[in-house]
């Protein structure tokens, strides 16, 4: 996001995206974060793929929370994404109005190699987020959750932290 004639813009660049809480828009969120990462030459294509995956996970959780909460209601609020861009660092927040949850109280699923694990199709999203982000925070709001994720461009492929 640096332009040759910039110079004046030393502050953080901010991109905001409000999306209806529908499964179909997760692909749009992925596209946007992928394009933003691609615009920063410090982010490799592999790291950009990490961002796409993490944003997909966070938006999926936001949409699921919001849709299950609004069950029966006719209006589903949008989800809000914010991207803060500085060279070598992209901070993303995904905010929903889905009622919130306690990340400390998540069901612990059996170990992946335990045959019992097959009974649970879910529970992989947050571990993926933990792996892919350099910083991850769940903030409870009055109405729901803000997931705040920080991604540093890394020379490696993300396997080494």
């Amino acid at each position, binding site marked *: 996001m640096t332009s040759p004639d910039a110079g004046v813009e030393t502050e953080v660049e901010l991109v905001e995206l409000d999306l209806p809480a529908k*499964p179909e828009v*997760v692909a749009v969120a992925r596209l946007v974060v992928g394009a933003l990462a691609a615009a920063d030459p410090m982010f490799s294509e592999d790291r950009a793929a990490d961002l796409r*995956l993490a944003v*997909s996970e966070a938006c999926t959780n936001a949409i699921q929370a919001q849709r299950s909460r609004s069950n029966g209601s006719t209006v589903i609020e949008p989800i809000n994404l914010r991207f803060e861009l500085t060279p070598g660092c992209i901070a993303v927040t995904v905010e929903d109005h889905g009622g919130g949850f306690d990340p400390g109280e998540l069901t612990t699923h059996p170990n992946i190699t335990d045959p019992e694990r097959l009974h649970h199709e879910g529970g992989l999203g947050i571990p*993926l987020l933990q792996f892919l982000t350099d910083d991850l925070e769940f903030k409870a709001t009055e109405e729901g959750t803000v997931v705040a994720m920080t991604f540093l461009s890394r020379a490696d*492929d993300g396997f080494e932290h």
Partner: protein
Amino acid sequence: MDLRIDVAEHGDWSVLQIRGEIDIATAPRLREQLISLVNDQRYQLVVDMEAVEFIDSTGLGVLIGALKRVRAHDGDLQVVLTNTRILKVFEITQLDTIFRISPTLDAVVAG
């Protein structure tokens, strides 16, 4: 945003060739397809992911569910995959330890 699923028979195996992105929008179609195969008593499944461009935990959950179903009938679900970005998602989640992943369909069919 598209997902395309083609099913073919290779000996004992039913092969699902999947193209596109597997996420919360498209995973339900994959789940339905897998369930309908199990309902047709096809318990030896190969998911060919060579043309998959994206998968997240929603898609992985569908594969886990299908593995459970075919195992209940002493069947198996194997994966054909070489794309390193998609492989990485299996590795991070350690699902590479519960799915057998092969580089080609021939390798699966040959056993």
